[in-house]
């Protein structure tokens, strides 16, 4: 079977059906069993502006949106002008000839003009079926069966619009498909069916699904891009799955509701982005103080402040590490792929239940709103669920109970409200073993020290359970790329590309960020060659954190903070430049501007 790696992009104004076209093309490829990764560059507007969706399609697994675009669907005149240079040589551009006065010129690509009116006889000036026409042309050029497209049109439209609209769209699809067959040259790459057919979803969807699998019973949110996808999955699915979903007045309410539900015995979760997370900070500390297990997801967008609502960044690391006043046990994890987002949620719930502390998932737009295909059976719907030392019934203890009992592990068995004979008060003021306040007139330095040490001892147990990163790729390398969280896929590909051009490169990637096992991490880092830390922020937040935790100083840094995610060549070019120059910082240039 032929190997190929092909990208289709769709450009247009929001409201032109870019997402629908992108979803349909992706779903068709998934049904073909092809691997897909998508990224949408868009703006914080309801109508107007411009969106550009990249769909990378490959016979092999893909974990980023790639470097090149073979075929562009230009839904409007702006897209023709803007994206003509972005088509790779040998590629094609599909556009509506009615949109342009002067046809675009490029002699190293195939230009594929269609006439919407001729193909559809649609009198509606809004040209609602243009996305279907152009998608059909694109799919014809890569050898997709028209029948699969028709299936998807029925699936996407029948419930929402009815038979008449479906019929019109199918007619438009057939006319466009036939037109392409007659007038344009197909690509050398022709998509072939692979087994098995794949499913297709976003990072937000998979984190929400991971929550359902982990036993989340209470989910609360305030809408905030780019985390809203989790709410949008939870809201329609929750009733069937026995999950309560609440939209709250603000993120402060969100996290405090989650704390109330978690304390009362439900696994509870919430998600937000940087601004909402800032509002949640005080309460995250209160979960640490009251020893209540919660999971908070921060889907980072560009900061500071309102920042870049629809763009990606890894700029909240220090915010999350430093969230809330004082010292308290906490866990910070950053999923390394969309599928890892699914698995991370049950893993983190088991840890926070065991250690009775807040757990924070730090991801970003590129992963949360990125979509990927996956093997349907690869989802583990029955992950291990360990609730730790939880008292839910009378008789689990002999009736003698101290909520914050001083123990060697720092873990005190947790009775949930409603359990007979285990009454206690949890407090955000510091307290003794029995929950009695040790602030105000009762302040007692010895009790304070005992309870602080008890809480912090939990960190020793946590760090033992967090796997340190591993060295991926050749042991003997010239360059070691170091990254964290969402960038695993792009750095991994860059390492392979560098190795292919003769610069042997390996990769160390961090998923569990805090607490960090200094010795275990240093052991891995000691194997690093010329070390380059790759991250999506200005100040090198992870580089500074890693140095603080381990004393490790990298040789070079590749940083991006323009809002767009890394493409593999950004990292490849950076590594080469850093090897060959005296500078220690490379900031890639973003070629595709939307």
């Amino acid at each position, binding site marked *: 079977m032929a190997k190929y790696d092909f990208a289709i992009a769709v450009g247009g104004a929001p409201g032109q059906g870019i997402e629908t076209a992108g979803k349909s093309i992706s779903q068709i490829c*998934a049904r073909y069993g092809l691997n897909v990764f998508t990224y949408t560059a868009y703006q914080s507007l309801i109508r107007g502006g411009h969106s550009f969706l990249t769909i990378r399609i490959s016979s092999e697994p893909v974990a980023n949106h790639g470097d090149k675009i073979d075929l562009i669907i230009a839904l409007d005149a702006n897209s023709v002008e803007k994206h003509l240079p972005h088509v790779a040589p040998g590629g094609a551009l599909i556009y509506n000839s009615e949109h342009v006065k002067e046809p675009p010129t490029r002699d190293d690509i195939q230009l594929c003009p269609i006439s919407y009116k001729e193909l559809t006889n649609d009198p509606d000036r809004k040209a609602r079926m243009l996305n279907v026409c152009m998608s059909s042309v694109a799919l014809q050029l890569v050898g997709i069966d028209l029948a699969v497209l028709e299936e998807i049109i029925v699936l996407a439209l029948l419930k929402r619009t009815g038979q008449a609209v479906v019929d019109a769209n199918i007619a438009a699809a057939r006319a466009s498909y036939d037109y392409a067959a007659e007038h344009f040259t197909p690509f050398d790459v022709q998509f072939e069916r692979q087994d098995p057919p*794949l499913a*297709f*979803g976003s990072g937000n969807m998979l984190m929400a*699904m991971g929550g*359902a*699998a982990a*036993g989340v*019973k*209470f989910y609360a949110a305030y809408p905030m891009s780019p985390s809203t996808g989790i709410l949008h999955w939870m809201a329609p699915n929750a*009733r069937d799955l*026995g*999950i*309560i979903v*609440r939209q*709250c*007045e603000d993120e*402060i*309410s969100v996290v*405090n*509701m*989650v*704390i*109330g*539900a978690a*304390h*009362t*015995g*439900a696994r509870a979760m919430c998600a937000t982005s940087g601004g909402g997370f800032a509002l949640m900070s005080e309460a995250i500390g*209160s979960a640490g103080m*009251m020893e209540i297990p919660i999971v908070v997801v921060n889907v980072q967008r560009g900061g500071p402040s309102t920042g870049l609502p629809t763009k990606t960044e890894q700029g909240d690391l220090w915010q999350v590490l430093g969230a809330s006043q004082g010292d308290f046990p906490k866990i910070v994890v950053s999923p390394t792929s969309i599928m890892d987002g699914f698995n991370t949620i049950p893993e983190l719930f088991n840890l926070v239940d065991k250690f009775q502390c807040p757990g924070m998932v730090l991801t970003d737009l590129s992963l949360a709103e990125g979509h990927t295909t996956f093997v349907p059976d690869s989802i583990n*719907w*029955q*992950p291990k*669920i360990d609730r730790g030392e939880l008292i839910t019934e009378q008789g689990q203890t002999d*009736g*003698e*109970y*101290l909520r914050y*009992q*001083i123990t060697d592990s720092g873990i005190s068995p947790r009775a*949930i*409200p*409603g359990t*007979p*004979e*285990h*009454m*206690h*008060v*949890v*407090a*955000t003021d510091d307290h*003794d*073993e*029995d*929950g*009695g*306040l040790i602030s105000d*007139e009762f302040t007692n330095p010895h009790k304070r020290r005992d309870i602080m040490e008890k809480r912090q001892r939990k960190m020793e147990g946590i760090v033992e359970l967090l796997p340190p990163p591993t060295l991926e790729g050749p042991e003997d390398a010239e360059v070691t790329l170091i990254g964290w969280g969402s960038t695993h896929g792009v750095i991994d590909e860059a390492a392979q590309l560098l190795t292919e051009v003769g610069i042997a490169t390996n990769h160390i990637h961090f998923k569990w960020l805090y607490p960090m096992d200094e010795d275990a991490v240093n052991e891995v880092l000691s194997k690093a060659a010329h070390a380059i830390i790759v991250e999506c922020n200005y100040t090198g937040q992870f580089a500074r954190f890693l140095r603080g935790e381990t004393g490790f100083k990298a040789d070079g840094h590749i940083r991006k903070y323009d809002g767009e995610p890394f493409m593999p060549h950004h990292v490849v070019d950076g590594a080469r430049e850093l090897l060959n120059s005296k500078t220690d910082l490379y900031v890639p240039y973003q070629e595709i501007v939307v």
Partner: protein
Amino acid sequence: MARRARRERPIQGAPTARDFKGDVNPDWCAGCGDFSVLNSLQNAYAKLGKGNHDHLTVSGIGCSSNLPGYIKTYGMHTLHGRALAVATGAKFANHELNVVVTGGDGDGYGIGGNHFIHTMRKNIDLLYIVMNNETYGLTVGQASPTTIVGEQTKSTPFGNLETPLNPVAMAIVSGATYVARAFSSDGKQLAELMYNGMQHKGFAFIDVISPCVTWKKEKMKIFDYWKERVQSLESHDTSDKAAALAQAVKTGHETQLGLFYHDTSRQSLNEMEPVLENGPIAHQPLGITQEQGDAIVQRMM
């Protein structure tokens, strides 16, 4: 030294207020109105006839918010202003618990004002008791959201310029379905309003005039100050929202006490939640079935 574990004893026979006495004695100033609120709450809990563990008392931060420590139920002493949000989550996790929220005017009407409005709108089944003393007591006497115009406090030495908010009127228009005002000196009425508020299916709110004897210039005479200003609601139809509002806007020397508004027609938010039909989510098995999971993946193909 580890503290010796305490053995809880179940209530023998019908509960009394004594059964709800906490392990810690209140550290409120002698004469504080909050003592009476605490006694009334213990009486109301006892009258409800359940075990200690069937109640959850939730508070924020402030003098009055120390209350959960002085009462024997499950308790949460949460962040300043956030008690209603925490209590809402707790009620959703186990709606069989009787969840009562206590706090002060700074906590509830100031820093927690947003949650106050929205929790009433949601009409979740909670009883919210605010010990309103028109001052920030624990921070030693600044103006609060209910401090009257002109009053000199540590933060308003030249007199308060801002109009106080009217919590009872706010509650009526914000969607609370049981709205009352009481005076801490009348413990009998207070306990009765609390008991009825606990029985009410929906958001019940009681603004309690609970005078501060330390930071008000009247000191112990503050009770006399209030006695001159309060009157009991008489021949009032509690199902009439407009009439309730008309009574609520009377302040100063016409401050009304009693039940202003009681709407039994609206379902509480937790009653409307279909997920709770199978019992509290805190008691449900965790995770989803393979069949449910397969159906989810099928929809992604």
